């Protein structure tokens, strides 16, 4: 039993060393309190709704989010807009549908079942409009970057004047947290660029936090359900393990042997 516990701690140590060594570049990212971290982590509903506003008014001009549907906006564990609100949001976008009975394609207002409308027809069009750089799809962006939410949060606030001696090409910007410090995207956020519906002051920091929270939800829409189930599962396992442990002790007490 003792060796087993010892082994478990060694195991944990090895795993943490591994995960550390595998983690991408070790940069000191800006830190903030994420409500969705930890055993009971949940999204901040208001932040998600504000984050959606930032996404749709700022990011969506260039970045697609092709794996999300408008219905997701009213689903449990997400921004939880009311169904009416989500319908209204959807209806504000035009989608191409068809062909109709005459064989013609037509446009109609989006429905809840439609995927988020993409800003560009295709990847090439996106590149052409953005100086050759493709604005990545944001559906799983948080999971596709080494530093995760901290990286995105920092990047949005990492725009600075380039250090002396660094030559930046036309349309390239300096960002403290970008890999290689050069980024094609110009600083997307500035204080007061949008006006929050709930009256929150739209500072760059606030918007960065809100939109990153929104992106985290977009990448992990079932995060809350996962945390809830995880807690229950682990408690259940611990109780069962304890019961089995005592049963084992009892059974093995029939013979002169340690277990």
């Amino acid at each position, binding site marked *: 039993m003792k060796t087993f516990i010892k082994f478990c701690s060694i*195991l944990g140590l090895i795993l943490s060393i591994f995960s550390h060594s*595998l983690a991408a570049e070790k940069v000191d990212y800006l830190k903030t309190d994420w409500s969705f971290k930890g055993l009971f982590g949940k999204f901040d509903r208001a932040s998600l709704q504000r984050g959606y506003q930032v996404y749709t008014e700022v990011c969506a001009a260039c970045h697609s989010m092709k794996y999300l549907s408008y219905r997701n906006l009213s689903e449990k564990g997400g921004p939880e807009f009311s169904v009416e609100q989500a319908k209204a949001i959807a209806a504000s976008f035009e989608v191409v549908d068809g062909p109709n009975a005459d064989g013609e394609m037509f446009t109609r207002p989006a429905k809840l079942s439609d995927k988020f409308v993409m800003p560009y027809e295709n990847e090439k069009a996106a590149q052409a409009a953005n100086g050759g750089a493709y604005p990545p799809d944001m559906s799983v962006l948080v999971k596709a970057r080494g530093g995760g939410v901290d990286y995105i949060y920092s990047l949005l606030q990492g725009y600075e004047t380039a250090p002396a001696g660094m030559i930046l090409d036309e349309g390239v910007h300096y960002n403290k947290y970008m890999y290689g410090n050069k980024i094609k995207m110009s600083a997307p956020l500035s204080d007061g660029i949008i006006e929050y519906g709930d009256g929150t002051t739209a500072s760059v920091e606030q918007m960065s936090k809100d939109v990153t929270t929104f992106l985290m939800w977009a990448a992990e829409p079932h995060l809350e359900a*996962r945390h809830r*189930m995880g*807690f229950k599962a682990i408690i259940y396992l611990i109780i*069962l393990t304890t019961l089995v442990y005592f049963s084992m002790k009892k059974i093995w007490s029939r013979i*002169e*042997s340690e277990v």
Partner: protein
Amino acid sequence: MSEHEYKPKSKVGQWFNDRLPLLTLANHLTDYPTPKNLNYWWTFGGILTFCLITQIVTGLTLAMHYIAHADMAFESVEHIMRDVNYGWLIRYIHANGASMFFLAVYIHIFRSLFYGSYKSPREIIWILGIIIYLLMMAAAFMGYVLPWGQMSFWGATVITNLFSAIPLVGEGIVTWLWGGYSVDNPTLTRFFTLHYLIPFLILGLVVLHIWALHVPGNNNPVGIDIKKPSKDTVPFHPYIVIKDGFALLMFMIVFAFFVFYSPNILGHADNYIEANPMVTPAHIVPEWYLLPFYAILRSVPDKLLGVVAMLSAILILAVLPWLDTSKIRSAVFRPLYRQFYWILVADVLILGYVGAMPAEGLYLLIARVATAYYFLHFLVILPILGFKEKTIPIPLSITEPVLGGNPNLAMAKQKESKIE
């Protein structure tokens, strides 16, 4: 063996059992005499069975929703994560289950190395185990390709390209493997097919592995042959079943922690970027469980020799029963081997670490030293050690040491109590 005397109680049972002795088999499995001094390192066999079944069940469910097509694979995985009921749970169990499987298999292998479980008369069990391990690596590698992320694509490109190192026919073999001139849709569909097939091959080999185990019976921490059944053994059920069950539950807690609280920590962020043949990731890194072999591969400057070294590193294990010349099984009674054993463990961990690092400068030097040592351990140290080592006298029966921690001390105590 006792199962030949087994007779079902009911008439129907007897009638059935005479025609298909399933009840005899069940009786053999429950009564199977197991050394009673097995420690928790022995519980990983059961844990591995659990891992295999978990992978098969979750894998079948995923296959119902996954689409093996270069244009749709990534999207279908997102569909599983978002829209399939509990799809996120099933996929995270499957993805982390692979890591858990390897974690358990490494412990299982290193347990065998420590207690000399590969030695006569258990060579066939060991070799079957190595084949299972090889198939596991193949299955895991192909499984990692299926989500069709950047690491999937480039990992597949790097690994399949290894075959081009074979003289003369190498290039042809690679084209044949790919089903084209690069990793593309035909590669994905065949990898999916093989990824689906291999677990069932593993399952069959596991049956053989257990069958072969049940002939000589389990090795044990003392490493001596024991009489079966005797006072040194306990019936598999309920003693070992409950103990394995307890260990499995502990394992499941660790497993659950990964699945529910850090499901992506063991994966690579780049695999959430859809495969793009035009963009190569900055570092192409395999999954953690393949890193030691990746380090060996990269530590050899020549491509062909690198591939040979990597394969040898695994295949050398198959001849281990004949490389280790010591008659004593358990490292408990081999003070020198015990030290070399821990050096080997450290060596493999170091290889794993440098495998994750860029192959340059100090990392490359460390990788080369560690690779050389890995082979030195098996090819030089082990054969010589068997002749040179002064071993500790082994006890005559496991009941003697099993009562206390230190086998020798326990033996002395036993004698004392007898005198009293």
